[in-house]
């Protein structure tokens, strides 16, 4: 499990107030019991934490927690190599 994934879990647990154990790669937003405001706040917190941008055009494609992690890791790597 990467440090990035752990940080994403910290952020989601803090904002959505779900159990950390719920956050498996296939966990959906329904599994997290997150509403649309929760999700926007998670995206904003991830942007601030990692210094990246996650536009809605991309975020709308996320189906589960694994998609979040893969996207953020890719953007962070992209930023590191820029």
């Amino acid at each position: 499990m990467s440090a990035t994934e752990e940080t994403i879990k910290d952020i989601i647990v803090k904002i959505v107030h779900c159990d950390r154990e719920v956050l498996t790669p296939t966990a959906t937003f329904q599994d997290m019991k997150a509403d649309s405001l929760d999700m926007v706040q998670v995206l904003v917190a991830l942007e601030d934490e990692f210094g990246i941008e996650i536009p809605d055009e991309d975020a709308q494609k996320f189906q589960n927690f694994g998609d979040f992690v893969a996207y953020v890791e890719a953007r962070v790597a992209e930023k590191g190599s820029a």
Partner: protein
Amino acid sequence: MLKGRVALVTGSSRGIGRAIALKLAEQGADVIINFFRRRQAAEQTAKDIESLGVTAKVIKANVGDPDKIDEMFDIISSSFGRLDIFINNAASGLPRSALDLDTKGWEWTMDINARAFLLCTQRAVKLMEGRGGKIVAISSLGSYLVLPGYVAIGISKATLEALTRYLAIELAPKGICVNAVAASLVTTEAGMLYARGGQQGESSPWQTTPVGRLVAPEDVANVVAFLCSEEAFMIRGQIIIVDGGTSLAPFTLTSKGG
């Protein structure tokens, strides 16, 4: 008419904000496009504005966050050094009843829809001082009518309208005109989402207005542009309603043109 003026329109990647940004650009203003979540849409709006022969600048900022507001105005200050027009349009909110509204939803809505108007105006005035300026806030009929699931947004818009009146008087000696425009349901993505998610059915009165059609974003933009003109100089602290007569005759709405 607005040639050489610099305008900031918050939440202008799409919908009403985009229509206002385009209208001001058509009249010659350089426009700062602020967005929060839709970069592609914001860049498209900027491209459309530049095709009109004026300057467009895209700035990402969540206006619910005071630090991001400061960052946005720091960029405006260093890029343009002044501001002539500030349109407070950005808005957000979840459809909730009063009994289902939690502190998170309340604060989110109030911070973006009402507090941002105050904080942005405080920064905007510094860039207008000594030169005068125009400030227009975008409200809605939900500030005084009870709409389904609209409690948090309605309260935030009522706050925005009260602030409009106070600012109009406080800023009048500085040569800054402050007004608001309140529309009924507007044919934007957000407006249609609200209409579908609300409790209205196919026969909902909100599907039309006494005029026979819903309010388009351009209807709002036209009035905003007028309020930004010198012809509107003596209009201060007013809430101009753009609703095709809906608020005057709500019971006639099901018969088109009724």
